[in-house]
């Protein structure tokens, strides 16, 4: 195995994890905003949501990344590749998370809404005490799924000069041509990261289920 590869790949994995974490955090916040738009009373706002999700889910991230990244300076956003890379991922995962949250809200059975309404709960309390707890439980499995996808999707950012695990592997391969060992190692890193997220999600799910939730899974 070529010298120094393990160190480089570990560094690359850290960067990928950081990018994914930023994208997941940003994407979740954006998704909450987007999901709110999806349920807004104004038809125009809902259409904007549908078009946004339609375009982001309809085009490969690779294509999206290139168009957004090189259009950004034109909009004079002086950002380094890492910030721009995270922004691109946030725009991408934001749409995926929004669809997950929307599904979660729709999964709340009508009677639950009615009992909440019958108590005359104000919107903020409705959101904090009923919508958020229920949606988190309903959407946890698909939420974890999107997190795993985000980690793997970050590999596309190498096209816009973001150095992360995949680019690290490709650079070593270009130099040493030890393709399968390096690709295998990179895949192992991805497996550890993604499988870890999956286990974390499972444990969180069991923890929430223990606290008495026997609701329907979205």
């Amino acid at each position, binding site marked *: 195995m070529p010298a120094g590869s393990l160190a480089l790949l570990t560094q690359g994995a850290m960067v990928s994890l950081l990018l994914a974490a930023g994208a997941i955090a940003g994407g979740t916040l954006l998704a909450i905003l987007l999901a709110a738009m999806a349920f807004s009373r104004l038809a125009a706002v809902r259409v904007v949501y549908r078009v946004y999700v339609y375009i982001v889910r309809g085009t490969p991230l690779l294509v999206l990344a290139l168009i957004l990244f090189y259009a950004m300076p034109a909009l004079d956003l002086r950002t380094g590749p890492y910030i721009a890379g995270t922004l691109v991922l946030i725009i991408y995962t934001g749409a995926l998370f929004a669809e997950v949250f929307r599904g979660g809200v729709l999964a709340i059975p009508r*009677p639950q809404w009615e009992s909440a309404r019958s*108590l005359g709960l104000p919107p903020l309390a409705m959101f904090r005490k009923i919508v958020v707890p229920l949606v988190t439980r309903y959407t946890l499995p698909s939420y974890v799924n999107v997190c795993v996808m985000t980690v793997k999707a970050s590999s596309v950012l190498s096209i816009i000069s973001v150095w992360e695990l995949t680019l690290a592997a490709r650079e070593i391969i270009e130099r040493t041509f030890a393709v399968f060992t390096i690709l295998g190692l990179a895949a192992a890193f991805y497996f550890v990261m993604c499988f870890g997220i999956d286990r974390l999600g499972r444990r969180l799910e069991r923890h929430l289920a223990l606290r*008495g939730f026997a609701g329907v899974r979205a």
Partner: protein
Amino acid sequence: MIAIRGLQKSFGALRVLYGIDLDIADGEVVALIGRSGCGKTTLLRCINFLEEYEAGEICLDGEPLWYRRGADGGRRRVPEAEARRMRQQMGIVFQQYNLFPHMTVLDNVVLGPRFSQAVSAPEAEALGRRLLARVGLEGKMSAYPAQLSGGQQQRVAIARALAMRPKVLLFDEITSALDPELVGEVEDVIRSLLSDRIMMVLVTHAVGFAREIAHRIAYIADGAIAELGTPSEVLDRPKDPGLKEFLRRVRS
């Protein structure tokens, strides 16, 4: 006191309520009976504005609810905040209990007072404990709905409605989803409420129970009140042929 005048309601083309007039005095218990699909549940849900209605007026202690005369004289829904304040004066208990699965029994009961009526935490908790004791569930405070029987969950739902200190309680066939042996414990709780002299409207199939606790019974058929009177008038000396047929089948 609740006054309902000329209440009309339809689901798209299907007319469900053809003009209901009904007055419920303070402390009075009224039972609504009738074949399934006659509109009794819809009437109940209109009172609590879980269903909109096209015409008619509902007043609680003289205050018109849910709709207001707009500037142009047209009928306009009251703002959301107004509607919420009105709903806090009414408690409703559903056939399927509908407790919040992710909250303990106590949290379910305390939720309304704490967040709709801004009651302080200690005070709300004390109220919650007292009500749960009253429905015989003081031992289940920190349990989750999924761990309770249907009867127990329905009693918690009653406590939750009571916690709002409502002027009227609406019961939507609350015992028909329960196994027979659990119905008694829920009916006991309602009997205990009679002493509170709180207005109650029950939609029910349990004609016997209705006779026992209702001051008046309304027999609803095809979206209108076919017969209204004291239990003995309506149940022992029914005049409406449909009511007679209904009672014969219910008693057999």
